[in-house]
Structure formats: structure tokens, C-alpha cells
């Protein structure tokens, strides 16, 4: 393990802002993408169900 303490790890030799700003934005956008894809899938299923209950109530 390369890091003595957690604060060492977050400090990243002075580049903390840049390194964690990169990692953080990547994590944030990918998580948002996953959440959005999940919501869109549920909406699509709900749409099919709604149309179906209109056709044969």
C-alpha cells in the first residue's frame, strides 16, 4: 500500500483537487447515466401497461 494515512491519500501529493475532481465527475456521470437508464426503462414498461389497459380495460 502506497499511502501512510487517509489524509495522504486524499491530498494526492498536492494534486487532490485535480485527481479527485476527475474521479468524482466520472463516478457522478456514470451513476447518473445508470439511474437515468433505469428510470427510462421503468417508464417504457409503464407506457406499455397503460396502453394495454386502455385497449382491454
Amino acid at each position, binding site marked *: *500500500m*502506497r*499511502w501512510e494515512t487517509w489524509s495522504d*491519500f486524499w491530498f*494526492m*501529493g*498536492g*494534486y487532490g*483537487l*485535480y*485527481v479527485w*475532481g*476527475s*474521479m468524482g*465527475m*466520472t463516478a457522478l*456521470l*456514470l451513476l447518473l*447515466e*445508470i439511474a*437515468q*437508464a433505469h428510470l*427510462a*426503462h421503468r417508464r*417504457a*414498461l409503464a*407506457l*406499455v*401497461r397503460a*396502453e*394495454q*389497459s386502455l385497449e382491454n380495460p
Partner: protein
Amino acid sequence: MTMRWFYYAAPQTFYGLAGRLWPWLAALALALTLAGLWVGFALAPADAQQGEGYRIIFVHVPASWMSMVIYLAMAFWAVLGLTFNTRLSGMMTRALAPTGAIFAFLSLWTGALWGKPMWGAWWVWDARLTSELVLFFLYLGYIALTSAIDDVRRADRAGALIAIVGAINVPIIYFSVKWWNTLHQGASVSITRSPSMAQMMLWGMLLMALAMWVYTLAIVCYRVRTLIIERERHTDWVKALPEVAGVKA
């Protein structure tokens, strides 16, 4: 073999295939990400010149590669769509676009965060950065155009044109550091400095690149199923799906 491809190109069969694939791909992507982060942050040493700052490479390079690969994949499906007029092609192209846009943005974002401490500038108008920015705008243009046209088939064809014409930009991005005198260096990390260091940096980067590949496959499998349901919702097979029919009380 040819028959097999067309069999899976039918939305109904691809829906099932993608549904079986995505959970495994997602699990694999997570495992690869954790392994890549471990190698990149726990095992790889600091760089001789850039200290700990070089670790941005573990997202910057994979994200940049994916932004180019995904655009080429879109162009591939666009060509298939225009020549064979298969229904799946348009859906695949559209399923790829948001992920490609995200990776193009991440390439620019992480590049800015890397450029500031190393070059002293968030942004410069050099060939590599500018052509990547063009790629990001191509993604946005594709998404805007396809969502602005109501007729799905027409939207797919218009989008296919952007995907194919814009693909010219991908080799321009890739070779820009050779063709022009750019600030963006070809290899900023001294991989040859010491063998052990080289290996761990390289492994971290390759693991993260593989993780993003598999992530892309997983999210595209997932997203294309949503598009299939939306577009095929008037067919009997969609209405008979357990996830549609099953929940109805």
C-alpha cells in the same frame, strides 16, 4: 452463421439476449473497475515527473478511447441501418450515443483538470483538444437531431448521416498529435523509466479501459431494451412479456 446473425438482429430475440447479458456485464465492469482502481491507486507508484497528479490517466485515457470507439460503433450500426434497413441498427446507434457523449465530456473534463497543473492552462485550442471537442458536439448534434424528429425511421436515417460523416473526425483526433505540433503530448508518462513502475501504471490503465468497455456493453444492452420496448410496444410479443403482463393486477 449468417442466418444466426440475422436471427439475433431481430429486436425480439435481441431483447432476450441483451436481457441475459447485461447483469453479467455489469458485474464484470464493477469487478474490473475495483481491480483497476486498486492497481492505479494502491499499487502504481508516483510518476517521476508528475508525482501523484498523473493518476488522472486512469480515467482520462480510457474515457478518451471509449469516446472514439463508441463513435465508430455508431457509424458501423448506421452503415448497417442504411444498407440493410434493419430495425435494430437505429436502436443500437441511439443506445450508444448518450454513453459516447458522457465519455467525450469526461475526456475534456479530466483533460482540463490534468492540463491545469501540468501545462498551467485548463484549455488550449490545439488540434487534439479541439478535435475532441468537435467529437463531443457531434454526439450532442446526433442526440438533438434524432430526438427532434418525430418519425422514428426518418430520425434514424438523419442520425445515421451524422454518425457516418462525423466518423471522419475520429482518425483526426487519434493522429492529431502526429499531424500537428500540439501541446498534448503523445506519451506524458515515462513508461520506460523503470520496469516495475511501467507495468503497474500500464496495468491500471488497461484494467480501467477494459472496465469502461464492459460498462459500455452493459449500459447499451440495458438501454437498447428500453428502446425496443418503446418501438415495438404494439406487437404481441412485447404485450406478452412477463415484465409487462406479469405486474398487471
